[in-house]
């Protein structure tokens, strides 16, 4: 029995102790982590971030606390590694004080300015009312108020100038006050106080009216003499209307509103992808942001990624194209078109093995997929130089229904592969012609670069070969770069080689090949090899172009 109780006690102690001893530590870890900025997040603390980095940083905080370090010591550690940036609240010292004091100083300054202006306005009103009006004037007010026949008819009142209106209103008020007094509604004390106030105001109004009339007469005289009235002498309270200014301001506000309404709604649209910009290419001028305007945002995300990937591929942005195809693959792991497109990109990047794996996965899913078969042949032919394999792939492709021009291209490539297979392992290495989509290329220039007679004896020279297409005498329109070429070199220039943003590879181009010994793009230097096409200019769509290299002196 005693043993049982002991066991129960031990178990409860074991179960209880971690919870009891860990909770304060957890709190301290959280407390410190909440003050640290997660380095890989946007405005998240290490305590709040679910990222791996933040988890690891929390573990470091815990470890250091367990080792007996204080909060200051733990923070000092992170400060020594990341700098002030790691603290979510900037330290109260140096330039950072601006952050801490600035808002309060700004608020205090704002209050001071507001107080100053309120006092000034209040002062102006008080100044308008002088303390004791002239008794003679008061007498005049009393007599005029009594003499007035009664309330001014509304239509007459409306036609009065503002100052006259004020005077008429005050006289009316004085008469009503007297009436109320007679009716016994007011104590004599109240009556006296209110009457004094009204009379003082009426006296001031009377003065203002007369001053205004005097100014008007002076203005008339001046106008009669042909002088402009000096600015700043306009009668107080009788501001002259400025129709032109009002109309201009109104027009501006209206135009601004219309501009905002029309311009912004057209300029801004939802982001179609993370690579896209909110304004598209409308304001930023960054070029197509990876989305074509013809695609609807509600459309199938997979289809859109495929379309965008192909568009990116066509304009030579392989990184973005690969991103799109990968996104398709995240949804559908063995999408044949995405896999084979990716394989093409990988082959271009020199990753023959990965390209092969990708296209084989595509074919495992869809053995008859034309594009996958085409890419499979290309990868085998170019990257792996497995001509027998390429022949098998393209023969299978020819059994599929193909457009006539596609079939012709495949047949040509097949013939080429057979020739290479026959000429054995010693055959010249193929270049990297990667036709964009399936085939049928009226959009390409295909041919070979060969060495001049004097050079052939010395074997293939080292360097990097650039095949350059220009339109007229302008900058290079499209360039193909071939590292360590083995002559004769087959080349195929197409839309993916275009260097100029938005440039289209069509019409006639002037072709030039240049072997640079130092491998850098640029003009030829002595010792480099150079040659032009036999018949320049060459229309895009031509095959069998021949360029012969000679030494540059």
């Amino acid at each position, binding site marked *: 029995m005693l043993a049982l109780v002991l066991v129960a006690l031990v178990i409860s102690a074991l179960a209880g102790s971690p919870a009891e001893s860990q909770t304060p530590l957890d709190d301290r870890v959280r407390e410190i982590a909440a003050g640290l900025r997660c*380095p*890989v997040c946007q405005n998240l603390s290490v305590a709040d971030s679910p990222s*791996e980095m933040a988890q*690891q940083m929390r573990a470091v905080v815990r470890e250091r606390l367990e080792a007996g370090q204080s909060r200051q010591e733990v923070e000092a550690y992170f400060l020594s*590694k*990341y*700098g002030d940036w790691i603290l979510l609240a900037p330290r109260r010292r140096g330039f950072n004080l601006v952050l801490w004091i600035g808002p309060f100083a700004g608020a205090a300054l704002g209050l001071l300015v507001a107080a100053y202006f309120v006092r000034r306005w209040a002062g102006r009103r008080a100044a308008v009312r002088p303390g004791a009006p002239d008794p003679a004037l008061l007498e005049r007010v009393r007599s005029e108020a009594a003499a007035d026949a009664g309330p001014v008819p509304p239509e007459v009142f409306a036609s009065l100038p503002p100052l006259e209106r004020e005077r008429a209103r005050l006289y009316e008020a004085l008469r009503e006050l007297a009436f109320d007094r007679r009716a016994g509604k007011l104590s004599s004390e109240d009556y006296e106080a209110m009457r004094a106030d009204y009379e003082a105001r009426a006296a001031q109004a009377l003065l203002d009216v007369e001053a205004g009339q005097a100014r008007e007469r002076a203005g008339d005289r001046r106008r009669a003499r042909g002088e402009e009235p000096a600015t700043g002498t306009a009668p107080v309270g009788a501001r002259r209307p400025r129709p032109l200014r009002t109309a201009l301001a109104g027009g501006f506000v209206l135009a601004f509103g219309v501009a905002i309404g029309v311009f912004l709604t057209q300029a801004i649209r939802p982001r179609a992808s993370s690579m896209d910009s909110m304004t598209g290419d409308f304001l930023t001028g960054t070029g197509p942001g990876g989305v074509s305007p013809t695609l609807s945002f509600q459309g199938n995300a997979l289809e859109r990624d495929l379309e965008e990937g192909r568009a990116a591929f066509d304009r030579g942005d392989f990184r973005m194209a690969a991103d799109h195809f990968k996104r398709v693959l995240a949804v559908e792991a063995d999408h044949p078109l995405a896999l084979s497109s990716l394989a093409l990109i990988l082959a271009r990047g020199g990753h023959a*093995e990965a390209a092969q794996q990708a296209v084989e996965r595509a074919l495992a899913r869809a053995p008859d997929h034309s594009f996958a078969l085409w890419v499979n042949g290309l990868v085998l032919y170019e990257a792996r130089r497995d001509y027998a394999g390429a022949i098998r792939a393209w023969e299978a492709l020819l059994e599929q229904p193909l457009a006539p021009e596609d079939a012709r291209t495949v047949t040509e490539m097949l013939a080429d592969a057979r020739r290479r297979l026959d000429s054995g392992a010693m055959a010249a290495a193929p270049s990297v012609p990667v036709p964009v989509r399936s085939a049928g290329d009226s959009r390409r220039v295909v041919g070979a670069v060969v060495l001049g007679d004097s050079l052939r004896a010395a074997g293939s020279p080292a360097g990097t070969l650039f095949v350059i297409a220009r339109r007229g005498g302008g900058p290079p329109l499209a360039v193909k770069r071939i590292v360590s070429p083995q002559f004769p070199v087959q080349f195929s220039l197409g839309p993916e080689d275009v260097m100029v943003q938005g440039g289209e590879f069509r019409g006639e181009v002037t072709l030039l090949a240049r072997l640079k010994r130092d491998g850098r793009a640029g003009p030829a230097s002595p010792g480099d090899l150079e040659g032009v096409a036999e018949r320049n200019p060459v229309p895009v769509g031509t095959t069998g172009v021949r360029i012969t290299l000679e030494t540059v002196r």
Partner: protein
Amino acid sequence: MWRRLVLFVVVAVPFLSLLGYGFTRDAKEIPSPLIARAAPPFTLPRFDDGAIALESQRGKVVFLNFWASWCVPCRAEAPALERAWLGYRDRGVVFVGVNIQDKDEDARAFLREFRITYPNVRDDAGKAAIDYGVWGIPETFIIDRDGRITYKHVGALGRATITAKIEEALRGVVSASEGRGEYGATR
């Protein structure tokens, strides 16, 4: 009139200069306090057998590269790093790759894909990464023969920068500030 002008200048000039100061700074810049300091020591397991201790490389220039297989710029710089390693391996320079925030099989596939031959270690707990103040990868540190960090680079590295900065480290020259690649990746 003069009073107003003076008041305006007194209020507006500090405000505008503060604004100007703010706009000329890169808010995303996180200057590392580690440059010209002693490199934090570590001992981490290699992908092949054994382990590497930074201390044991004293006397050599160490090119320390933090990477992950999922990071796009790491892929971009991988071939340049391997080529640079082949060029410098006999010149008292050692390259060490530190794999962080990654899966073991992915990391190994990356090393195979780019045929990386310099030693690579795993930092599963991220301690070395935090010790070096890593916030985005790839990040590269160059450590001179005395174990002092001479250069830090955030983002993908090209051949020209690698060569220039290793040569500086070989001569014991410390860079004034860290470098930035064309793009970095964060997760």
